[in-house]
């Protein structure tokens, strides 16, 4: 944590709203990315961002500086997003039948249907993410979306690096298993890229 950020946090701890604005300017995109990664819905992700910064302003006094500020913030975002997701419950369920398998038709593989196909692929990915346990989903978002290192992830998740690696491994494995009917992995079929390149 650099001196400038330390000062910003300290001012925010004293109730300076301008300091919160500075934190918002610095972190809002990261916060939104994590929130969106969990809820996968625009309005809900924005609500999470709003809640996180209001909550942060109230509770930043509890931040003692023992860990990096961003890992403290990321943990708050992840918990808030998971809470939102739980509260919203079935609102997040996809319009696609969860158990139904989606196989693109031959017509759909031709040009004009590509956008629709892409949307459906995104829906499938969202469903696969929804099926993951919270810890594995968090690990995938921290690493694959936000690009945190194993060490940073361990700090944000409050666990060891070994646990982080295990969560990542099983999360990825589950994603591949859930999407295997739609996305054939390399060496076994057409590959993901053929879906997006159609």
């Amino acid at each position, binding site marked *: 944590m650099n001196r400038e950020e330390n000062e910003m946090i300290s001012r925010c701890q004293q109730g300076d709203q301008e300091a*919160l604005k500075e934190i918002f300017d610095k972190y809002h995109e990261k916060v939104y990315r994590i929130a*969106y990664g969990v809820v996968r819905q*625009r309005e809900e992700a*924005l609500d999470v961002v709003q809640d996180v910064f*209001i909550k942060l302003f109230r509770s930043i006094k509890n931040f003692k500086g023992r860990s990096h500020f961003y890992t403290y913030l990321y943990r708050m975002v992840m918990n808030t997003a998971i809470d939102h997701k739980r509260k919203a419950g079935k609102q997040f369920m996809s319009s696609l039948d969860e158990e139904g398998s989606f196989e693109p038709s031959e017509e759909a593989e031709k040009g004009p249907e590509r956008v629709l196909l892409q949307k459906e692929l995104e829906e499938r990915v969202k469903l696969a993410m929804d099926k993951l346990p919270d810890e594995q989903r968090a690990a995938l978002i921290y690493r*694959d979306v936000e690009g945190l290192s194993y060490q940073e992830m361990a700090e944000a998740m409050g666990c060891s690096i070994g646990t982080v690696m295990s969560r990542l491994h099983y999360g990825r494995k589950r994603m591949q298993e859930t999407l295997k009917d739609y996305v054939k992995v390399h060496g076994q079929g057409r590959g*993901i890229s053929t879906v997006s390149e159609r």
Partner: protein
Amino acid sequence: MKNSCSTVSTVLEKYFDQEVTDEEKLLVEGHLQECPGCRDALKSMEEFRILIKAPVEEATQKEDFPWVWQKIERGIRQQEKLTWWQSFRSWLDVTPLFKKRVWIPAVATVVVLLFVTTQIILKKTPSYPEVSVVEYIESQSDNVMVYQLEEPKVTVIWLFEGPEEERTTT
């Protein structure tokens, strides 16, 4: 093939996440040159990462964040208005008893008891009913005093026959 796939697969994911040591990096890269299966596995991981990340990046680029900050400011102002209530709540939260929300039925019981007690006290009949009309008639032998009570409807005639004797008729 210098190293078997099973040896490399243990560090392949670490390699993908750029968390390997220099030694592990050499091991994986040497193996990848010779093994199309592991190259495909690595490519597959990369493509899954794109699948997860791309919609998030796209959504982030479209967003209008100054508007979100205005909502946050409004939210903080609303919270400040609630401060007195929150301080009351935090005061209540001091004891574990209050934390468990036992105080809600407890307060309700006290209120009900107070209400019932007040009603009983207020309904109690006064020992001296209010006198609404008083009439006093004097004569040479007797004096008469007439009280008329509103509730209950009773007329009291008080007859004084002498300075030391008195008789009441209702």
